[in-house]
């Protein structure tokens, strides 16, 4: 059996582990267009901020590939896919045949068209790839950059800001929505983080965006916002979002929607072709529809399920839901599922704010089941809320304890708790 995996991040690595648990002999080949062994994208902000060195970016070491007998092809882009003949072509013309293919190529940063901005404008960066992060660091160091502008105050934008501030670069962030982190947080949580940003010297501009940029000698020099405000800068980081990378499946019969559509076995519409991670559109546990949920745990789980199915162990992907854990400006934050429910659709919201401690807990319920949560500066035991969502536990009897500091397994019905903690092989 020849297994071919395109991409070398969370989904790919978990697929390899799953395949090798079943098939010790088959050939596994990984192709990545990046030169490095592997690295954890969420760690790039820690690297930018100087909290960790480059050698700490990898989440699996070289021995991993040896131990699992993986043939690694690095620094080469997969450009062609022929699902009839079952082969993938690389940019240099090399042809790789496969029996089972996993596409786990992740996402590509979105760069909206902005007047005056060109692909090759100097001083403009995205922030999801190591090579880009390295170019960014070089640029900051060589030009002794003191000030930067970040477009987009989502999670990637905020982590970039944090890294920049740690390097002593002053930051202005421009967000189109009326608050930061609008996709993950509610207004209260957003305002707590915004206060922290401002306290650290970050200027936050909301409800505005860049209308055009001025360059000099091909290098960015000044931004003009929609509001007319002008901001001189020689560094712009674009962090407005990421979309699934569909490049390889273009002009093939592999069905795509927003991402590559996969079934419960992580197989695409074409037999023997699987997809996982940020490029895939799999089951969303909460909406029961297919959705792209571009987070690490989803990539890891989908990769594992794909690997098992590819090696012949039929395994169903249970569907996960959106969740994020991000420490922002030293505030630990975790959010699950539906965080800002629409009015009048039967949702119930519990929340508790402690301004002095900057701690905030919010639980969203529907029909007495937890469907979402936000936790700021109060993350310990967060996973228990996640478990309540996944297990669909009726919380009517202990609703009043959900926000308590002492919240834990004790509030659960005894039989369920005993089953949970005694379970020989509890699998989330």
């Amino acid at each position, binding site marked *: 059996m020849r297994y071919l995996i395109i991409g070398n991040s969370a989904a790919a690595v*978990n697929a390899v582990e799953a395949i090798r648990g079943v098939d010790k002999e088959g050939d596994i080949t990984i192709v990545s267009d990046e030169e490095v062994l592997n690295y*954890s994208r*969420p*760690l790039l902000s*820690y690297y930018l901020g100087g*909290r*960790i060195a480059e050698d*700490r970016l*990898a*989440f*699996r*070491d070289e021995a991993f590939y040896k131990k699992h007998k993986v043939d690694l092809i690095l620094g080469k882009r997969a450009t062609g896919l022929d699902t009839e003949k079952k082969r993938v072509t690389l940019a240099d013309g090399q042809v790789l045949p496969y029996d089972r293919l996993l596409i786990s190529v992740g996402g590509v940063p979105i760069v909206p068209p902005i007047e005056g901005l060109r692909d090759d404008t100097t001083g403009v960066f995205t922030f999801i790839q190591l090579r880009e992060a390295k170019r960014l660091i070089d640029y900051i160091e060589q030009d002794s950059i003191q000030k930067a502008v970040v477009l987009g105050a989502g999670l990637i934008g905020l982590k970039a800001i944090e890294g920049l501030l740690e390097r002593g670069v002053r930051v202005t962030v421009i967000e189109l929505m009326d608050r930061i982190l609008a996709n993950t947080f509610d207004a209260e949580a957003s305002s707590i983080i915004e206060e922290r940003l401002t306290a650290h010297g970050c200027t936050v501009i909301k409800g505005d965006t860049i209308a055009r940029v001025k360059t000099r000698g091909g290098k960015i020099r000044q931004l003009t916002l929609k509001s007319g405000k002008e901001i001189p800068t020689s560094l712009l980081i674009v962090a407005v979002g990421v979309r699934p990378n569909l490049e390889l499946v273009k002009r093939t019969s592999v069905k795509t929607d927003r991402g590559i559509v996969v079934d419960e076995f992580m197989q695409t519409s074409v037999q023997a072709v699987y997809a996982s991670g940020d490029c895939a559109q799999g089951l969303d546990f909460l909406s029961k529809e297919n959705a792209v949920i571009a987070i*690490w*745990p989803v990539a*890891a*789980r989908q990769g*594992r399920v794909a690997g098992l199915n590819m090696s012949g162990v039929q395994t169903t992907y249970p569907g996960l839901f959106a*969740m*994020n*854990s*991000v*420490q922002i400006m030293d505030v*630990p934050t*975790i959010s*699950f599922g539906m965080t800002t429910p629409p009015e009048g659709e039967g949702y119930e919201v519990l929340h508790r704010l402690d301004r002095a401690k900057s701690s905030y807990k919010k639980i969203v319920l529907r029909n007495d089941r937890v469907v979402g949560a936000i936790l700021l500066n109060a*993350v*310990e*035991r*967060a*996973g*228990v809320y*996640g*478990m309540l969502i*996944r297990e669909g536990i009726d919380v009517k009897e202990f609703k009043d304890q959900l926000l308590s500091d*002492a919240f*834990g*397994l*004790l509030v659960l019905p005894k039989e369920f*708790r*005993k089953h*949970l*903690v*005694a*379970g*020989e*092989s*509890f*699998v*989330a």
Partner: protein
Amino acid sequence: MKKRIIINEEYCMGCRLCEVYCVTQRSRSKDILKAYKGEYPRPVSGIVFEEKGPISFALQCRHCEEPPCVEACLTGALYVDAETGRVLHDRERCVGCWMCIMVCPFGVIKLDHDERVVASKCDLCIEAEEPACVVHCPNEAITVVEVKEKE
């Protein structure tokens, strides 16, 4: 053989000796007085203790067969020890992103506010013969069993 801790809440008296001895075992000195009076910051216990009215129990990492914390770990700091099946945590690699806390259904991973804030969890007393909480539980509310490898 893989060790696992079984807890039995009916036997728990709420004395919290498990926590006291867990902290002692995780201290540098392994001495109960020094651990509590001489070492700063005091080691974080690997136990989450829950109590309300007559019900109490001590909970520690379940060392899951397919640990969601290892799957979610961004850095590779959390891993399954191939020999013993224990879920272990490398503090040096940990950056404190709390992905593990987000996905642990038992809520047994804690924040350790040491020099850097990192995750902290039970390692089944890797340096000792038997887990300290098991040894020092006076009423067998915490016991250890050996489980056979799943084939």
